[in-house]
């Protein structure tokens, strides 16, 4: 990296040939990272699932099957092969999108995942948006007013979000806002009589109904979504606000913030225009991790709100030794984490010039 202006941003960097080379190299690196991480992830989940004391054959044929039926299924599942071979077969199937059949739902796992993941995605995304829109300004405000009443209020509210169990908050929320006040709809993603009207394109009801212009269903989906999303959002808000606060306190004591004020910036101008852009990298990390953990599925929230999401699906699969479904779900969660991390990495470079160009 260049240190002085003399050779900084050297002209050769700007030559188009070099640029294309750089982009190619980066893309290749990106794909390679993705592949290696994925192989590692599937290997670990696959071998753990085979090491557990669950007979995958019994899960398929049931415990009343004859020996002949058992043997047939044993061969059909490829369990006579050595373990590494089984893993390769599994990998090959994964690449073609074949996650196997779910014993519990008797449908392909992929179909199941494509049904449950959008529900979780919808919930997690809205919750994260709430968490960021409220949590970040709250954290900045708390840092800027450190030790005074806005800071104390935000910390107490945040601590409450941290410590109250989500199922309790969910039930109380349903009782008050649905049962007593009737401001929101109850459990599930839609009222019963709206089910199946909108064609499933993405599986995200908000998007599907918007595409068809069916605003009645859109509104109904929102009124179902708002309570669980707010409750999940409250948790990520508490975390995001707390981290934002500590990142900002760190930056606000820096000299360049004082310099910004000497130039004639207002206090808040210095806070938002100068200190805030400097916390983007750690903040993106925090938001990314919080988002990814919500995308894993929030079992408790999904249970309380009868939300047919990923968390509930994987949990049920686990209780029923439905190993294909568990594996499929785990691979999906892994893929989500990898994607979120890669996107964070790209965003770092966008926000911090020191991380660009090596």
């Amino acid at each position, binding site marked *: 990296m*260049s*240190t*002085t*202006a003399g050779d*900084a*941003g050297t002209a050769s960097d700007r030559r188009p040939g070099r640029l294309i080379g750089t982009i190619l190299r980066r893309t290749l690196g990106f794909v390679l990272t993705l592949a290696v991480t994925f192989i590692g992830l599937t290997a670990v989940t696959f071998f753990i699932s085979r090491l557990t004391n669950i007979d995958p054959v019994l899960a398929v044929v049931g415990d009343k099957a004859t020996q002949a039926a058992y043997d047939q299924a044993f061969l059909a599942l490829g369990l006579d092969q050595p373990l590494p071979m089984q893993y390769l077969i599994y990998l090959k199937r994964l690449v073609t999108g074949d996650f196997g059949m779910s014993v519990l739902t008797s449908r392909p796992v992929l179909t199941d995942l494509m049904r449950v993941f959008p529900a979780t995605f919808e919930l997690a995304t809205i919750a994260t948006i709430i968490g960021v829109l409220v949590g970040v300004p709250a954290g900045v405000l708390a840092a800027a007013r450190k030790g005074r009443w806005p800071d104390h209020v935000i910390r107490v509210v945040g601590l409450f979000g941290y410590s109250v169990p989500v199922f309790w908050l969910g039930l109380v929320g349903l009782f008050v806002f649905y049962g007593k006040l009737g401001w929101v709809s109850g459990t599930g993603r839609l009222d019963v009589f709206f089910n199946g009207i909108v064609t499933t394109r993405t599986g995200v009801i908000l998007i599907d109904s918007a595409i068809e212009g069916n605003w009645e269903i859109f509104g109904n989906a929102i009124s179902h979504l708002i309570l669980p999303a707010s409750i999940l959002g409250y948790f990520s808000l508490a975390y995001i606000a707390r981290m934002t606060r500590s990142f900002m306190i760190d930056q606000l004591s*820096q*000299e*360049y913030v*004082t*310099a*910004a*004020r*000497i*130039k*004639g*910036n*207002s*206090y808040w101008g210095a806070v938002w*225009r*100068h200190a805030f*852009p*400097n916390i*983007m990298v750690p903040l993106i990390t925090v938001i990314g991790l919080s988002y990814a953990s919500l995308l894993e599925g929030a079992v408790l929230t999904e249970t309380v709100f009868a939300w047919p999401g990923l968390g509930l699906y994987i949990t049920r699969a686990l209780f029923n030794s439905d190993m294909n479904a568990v594996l499929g779900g785990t691979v999906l969660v892994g893929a989500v984490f990898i994607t979120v991390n890669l996107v964070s990495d790209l965003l770092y470079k966008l*926000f*911090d*010039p*020191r991380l660009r160009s090596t």
Partner: protein
Amino acid sequence: MTDPLLTVDNLEVTFPGRTGVTRAVRNASFTLGRERLGVVGESGSGKTTMGRALLGLLPHSATVTAKTLSYAGRDLLACSERDWQQLRGRRMSMVMQDPKYSLNPVRTVGQQIGETCRLHLGSDRRDARRRTLAMLEAVQIRDPELVHDLHPHQLSGGMGQRVMIAMMLIAEPDLLIADEPTSALDVTVQNEVLRILDDLVRKRGMGLIMISHNLTMVSSFCDRVLIMYGGRIVEECAARDLGNARHPYTRALVAATPSLDVRRAELATVVRDPEWLA
């Protein structure tokens, strides 16, 4: 000297502490015209605190009182936050110690210098760019177009400090406080940066307060010198008269300055007299 730029009479800055009040600046009085005033003192003598008090930028916990604290006839103690925003950067400004910390790492040189124009001169993007390039040239940066789009981490210390000077002087303030502007720089570039600063201050006829602990540097660049000790101004004299200083602390400081002409095995040490603080 005509109408003074800055009048400071009986300035006191105190910080509350666990063991009682700390008096960081005590009974400081001086006036400043369009001249170069050096403020010298050891660490903790209150010179930086005094500089920041003049810009109204002390932490909330600090208490600032004065019989008079006025800038060009304007009472600084009565300034609202909004008044301060119009004063800072436009009328009075400050060059800080280390460009590594005083420039915003994620914004380009052009954005940071241009911001001063936008805040005070009502510049649009294009005008800010034009002025910034001219200002970069004024602080003797060879390739302004290139430097305009660089980030602070791509600059050397000397370049960074020149960018800092450009950022603080572009709105043409009348008073500049330079708080140890060269102590973070390599000795080789210190003189260069000082020369640029001195040049701009002279050309524009500004008032300069040069805060430093380098007695030699201050006495060669300034017209007048204030010596601070333990929060108070113990001596004020013309720079060339430092040799005839009256206060024992000043005399001890001057005696402790190494010289190329006189070989000495051991430099003199300052022997402190508790009387000085009384």
